[in-house]
């Protein structure tokens, strides 16, 4: 073992002063980083002693190891960061004792290290209750990579598992066991889950979700002993009351205790319930000794979260570098996803004050806000729906006045909680140009009345464009608040909004743009109103979209039935209904891609994208794909895209319905439907939700009795969770409900408005949607179904139709006057494929 010099640096010898860091966990590492950033690594000798053999890793995302991450993915630093900065790391060793008077540390291998400053960052240890049997083989804790690897190894031979502890950590461990395929039971001493954060209502909401995932829960149960087999393996748990539980593996996740043993042994002051006591400088009672992270006790509080620890690490690094800095406590709002359930805690939810609680057992949401005597928000807990989180964080910090809590928390009015009117002025709306909500509001106050105006004077919305719909909502909300009328006109050529135009077209039977703009608009149209009219004509079934005058109306993508790319070439995406594809079709796609030298990539929508086709190549490419039995995937249209599926009951051991078949049937039913924005669907075969149905415009999840229908979800720039519309529908009921929902959306949504925004803006929100779609309150159900039936009957693959007609093919040329390929399209090869040479 290499010997470390033991002499203490001082001015007389000229050697550098030594900073000793005890513990190389998240916070200890953060300290090293902060020290390097401040140049301390060149003025000081930094020595790190860490018990774990691995260099610091991301403990917060530990569970990702059961989700495909490797230990290397969790590493917090590049492997050579310490070496390059000259930081000495001694791993696999502990510091066991400090002689604070002599400024000397002694390690488990007997090594002596003299320090000028010592930083204790030893974190905490899992608490294992003092009951018999916890040392049996198959009993684990959940804190380190080694713990998780041992759990995975042991679980391979097991069918059942138990977790002791129903708090944050316990639920995380339960999820891990679930992912390992174990039948899992959570045992909690308190009468509810997450007893520290939640009250009974919140606990019940969480229970609903957890049990829905197939995890059993026993609350109010005190484990009395770990039962073991004669050969010393875990067999289950016994309780002070009630039946024994069988389990071949037990994880203890019942809380943590600060690892303050060296501090105790070395005479440092520790708190009553543990933790090395520190002041605002993070200094302990011993000279030149600091403590940071989970081992530290500041103002009587030990933080079990990483953010306050990081703040402490920064304070100590700054002070050692001669800067002023102090740790004055932390309000640590937290938002987590536990077993797929969003949970958030803000401020101090246990504060004394009036409580506003909104709970909906049906959807498993529960929200509580505590308001103090002065009327300020003191704390809040949200389960199941955390939309109100950003506003509540601002409210607790006092940067916004107390919002109207009922409307903030109520799902109906509020998803209004996430509505734009409630966003704080500081919120960044356009990330491309860093434009805040306040700037946009001011622009409206200064006279902007439309999104176009706002784009002009703030640049917001002129980058990627993903914030445009939000800007629209902000403008409308501001105008309404100022008592002005909201500009609903589609564009300078039409006073009407998109839904009004739809009604006009439907009622009058007008099917040409020329007539529409003459009778109901002005001028000759533009790039906004023309595609809207084209989409409405298409939704109302006016045949091939590129015939006659319609050709001039289509967006460039629709005009060439392909998506334009940055270099002016196009992409080709064949439809793969439900993601199911035959080997022969895969081969055909591969052959086309090879023969036309197209860049090939699997999309996020379970299909295959072939990129880099020149206009004049599109017909030949599609000719071959169609011969192989494929058809247009309409990736280019504002229309139905994909119906994602999971493997479902045919193969999957958990599936309860044939999700693939339903997905294919739905995709074949709705393919080609043009809409105000794109529409995505998904079908999962069970509640494990592998198809991510709850993030789709229409999501279907199989149940034992039928299908649950979710609506209004999307990913994109402003992700939205879909909302449960109806449960346990038969396939027939399901299809009828989706028919109505989609057609109603097509009729009444604004241009480029996805279902989530549309349904939120409807008066009465999702309840209204439920009454119209499920109870036919408006009496338009039959009409909507008939419109959909007409669409289904009239569907034809647009590429098949195009290839049938030489006239239609005439437009697919790079130049009208020569067969030369476009010389501006140039490529380079990367990873064996062709990509555009940078065009900008």
């Amino acid at each position, binding site marked *: 073992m290499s010997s470390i010099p033991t002499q203490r640096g001082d001015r007389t010898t000229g050697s550098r002063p030594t900073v000793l860091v005890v513990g190389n966990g998240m916070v200890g590492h953060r300290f090293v980083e902060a020290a390097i950033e401040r140049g301390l690594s060149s003025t000081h000798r930094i020595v790190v002693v860490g018990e774990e053999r691995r260099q610091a890793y991301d403990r917060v995302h530990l569970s990702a190891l059961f989700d495909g991450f490797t230990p290397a993915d969790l590493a917090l630093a590049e492997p050579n960061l310490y070496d390059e900065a000259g930081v000495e790391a001694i791993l696999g060793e502990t510091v066991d004792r400090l002689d604070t008077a002599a400024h000397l540390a002694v390690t488990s291998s007997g090594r002596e290290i003299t320090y000028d400053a010592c930083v204790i960052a030893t974190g905490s240890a899992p608490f294992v209750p003092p009951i018999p049997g916890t040392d049996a083989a198959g009993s684990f804790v959940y804190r380190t990579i080694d713990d998780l690897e041992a759990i995975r190894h042991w679980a391979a031979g097991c069918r059942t598992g138990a977790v002791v502890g129903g708090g944050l950590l316990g639920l995380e461990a339960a999820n891990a066991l679930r992912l390992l395929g174990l039948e899992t039971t959570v045992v909690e001493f308190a009468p509810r889950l997450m007893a520290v954060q939640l009250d009974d209502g919140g606990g019940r909401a969480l229970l609903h979700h957890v049990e829905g995932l197939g995890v059993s829960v026993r609350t109010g149960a005190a484990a009395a002993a770990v039962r073991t087999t004669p050969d010393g393996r875990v067999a289950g748990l016994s309780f002070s009351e009630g039946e024994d539980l069988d389990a071949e593996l037990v994880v203890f996740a019942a809380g943590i205790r600060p690892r303050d043993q060296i501090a105790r042994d070395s005479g440092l002051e520790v708190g009553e319930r543990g933790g090395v006591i520190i002041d605002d400088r993070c200094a302990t009672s011993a000279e030149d000794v600091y403590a940071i992270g989970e081992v530290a006790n500041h103002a009587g509080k030990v933080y079990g979260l990483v953010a306050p620890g990081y703040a402490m690490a920064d304070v100590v690094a700054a002070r050692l570098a001669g800067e002023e800095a102090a740790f004055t406590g932390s309000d640590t709002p937290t938002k987590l996803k536990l077993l797929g359930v969003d949970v958030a805690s803000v401020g101090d939810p246990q504060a004394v004050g009036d409580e506003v609680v909104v709970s909906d057992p049906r959807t498993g949401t529960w929200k509580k806000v505590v308001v103090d005597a002065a009327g300020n928000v003191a704390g809040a807990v949200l389960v199941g729906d955390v939309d109100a989180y950003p506003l509540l964080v601002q409210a607790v910090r006092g940067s916004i006045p107390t919002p109207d809590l009922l409307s903030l928390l109520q799902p109906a009015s509020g998803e209004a909680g996430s509505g734009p009117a409630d966003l704080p002025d500081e919120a960044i709306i356009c990330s491309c140009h860093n434009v805040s909500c306040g700037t946009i509001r001011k622009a409206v106050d200064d006279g902007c009345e439309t999104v176009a105006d706002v784009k002009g004077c703030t640049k917001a919305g002129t980058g990627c464009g993903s914030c445009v719909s939000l800007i629209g909502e902000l403008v409308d909300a501001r105008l309404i608040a100022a008592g002005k009328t909201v500009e609903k006109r589609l564009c300078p050529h039409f006073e009407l909004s998109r839904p009004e135009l739809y009604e006009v077209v439907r009622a009058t039977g007008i099917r040409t743009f020329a007539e529409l703009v003459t009778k109901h608009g002005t*001028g000759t149209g533009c790039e906004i109103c023309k595609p809207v009219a084209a989409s409405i004509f298409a939704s109302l079934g006016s045949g091939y979209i590129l015939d006659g005058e319609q*050709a001039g109306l289509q*967006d460039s993508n629709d005009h060439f039935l392909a998506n334009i790319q940055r270099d002016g070439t196009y992409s080709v995406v064949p439809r793969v209904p439900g993601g199911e594809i035959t080997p022969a079709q895969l081969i055909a796609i591969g052959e086309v891609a090879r023969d036309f030298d197209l860049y090939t990539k699997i999309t996020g929508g379970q299909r295959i994208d072939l990129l880099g086709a020149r206009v004049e190549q599109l017909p030949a490419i599609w000719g071959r794909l169609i011969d192989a039995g494929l058809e247009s995937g309409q990736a280019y249209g504002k229309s139905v895209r994909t119906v994602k599926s999971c493997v479902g009951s045919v193969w999957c051991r958990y599936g309860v319905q044939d999700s693939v078949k339903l997905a294919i049937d739905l995709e074949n039913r709705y393919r080609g439907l043009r809409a105000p924005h794109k529409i995505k669907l998904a079908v999962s075969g069970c509640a494990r939700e592998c198809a991510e149905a709850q993030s789709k415009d229409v999501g279907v999840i199989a149940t034992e009795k039928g299908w649950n229908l979710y609506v209004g979800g999307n990913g994109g720039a402003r992700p939205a969770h879909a909302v449960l519309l109806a449960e346990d529908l038969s396939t027939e009921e399901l299809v009828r409900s989706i028919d109505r929902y989609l057609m109603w959306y097509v009729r009444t949504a604004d241009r480029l408005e996805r279902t989530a925004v549309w349904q939120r803006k409807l008066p009465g929100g999702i309840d209204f949607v439920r009454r119209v779609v499920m109870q036919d309150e408006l009496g338009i159900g039959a009409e909507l179904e008939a419109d959909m039936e007409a669409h289904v009957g009239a569907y034809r693959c647009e590429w098949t139709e195009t290839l049938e007609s030489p006239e239609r093919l005439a437009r697919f040329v790079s*130049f009208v006057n*020569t067969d030369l390929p476009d010389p501006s399209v140039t490529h380079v090869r990367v990873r064996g494929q062709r990509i555009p040479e940078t065009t*900008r």
Partner: protein
Amino acid sequence: MTITEPELRTTATTWEPVCDLKRLTPGRGVAALVDGAPVALFHLGEGETFAIGNVDPFSGASVLSRGIVGDVDGVPTVASPIYKQRFDLRTGRSIDDETVAVSAYDVRVVDGICEVRPGGTLP
């Protein structure tokens, strides 16, 4: 900032025949190579034809012929299919950023054939 066409040409005196007017869908454009330069040619119906450089200066892609034609307060425009900036079909100037322009070309129709004069002019 001024972004210009790749090359500035002197205005030629000859006309180059490009295609039969029937190849142009009213309200849509086509691209042509005129003396080696990519040109976007538009027919707005009623005999109105326009030609401007085909390379969209905002993206560098040769695509303006594939944009949607319309009008802004009566000015005939095309919107680039890439990032949607609009150009005045008469002058080539961008409506959305006055400092940017593409060349405009003279066009005429003789005996049903569209002709373009090579070497456009920048406004």
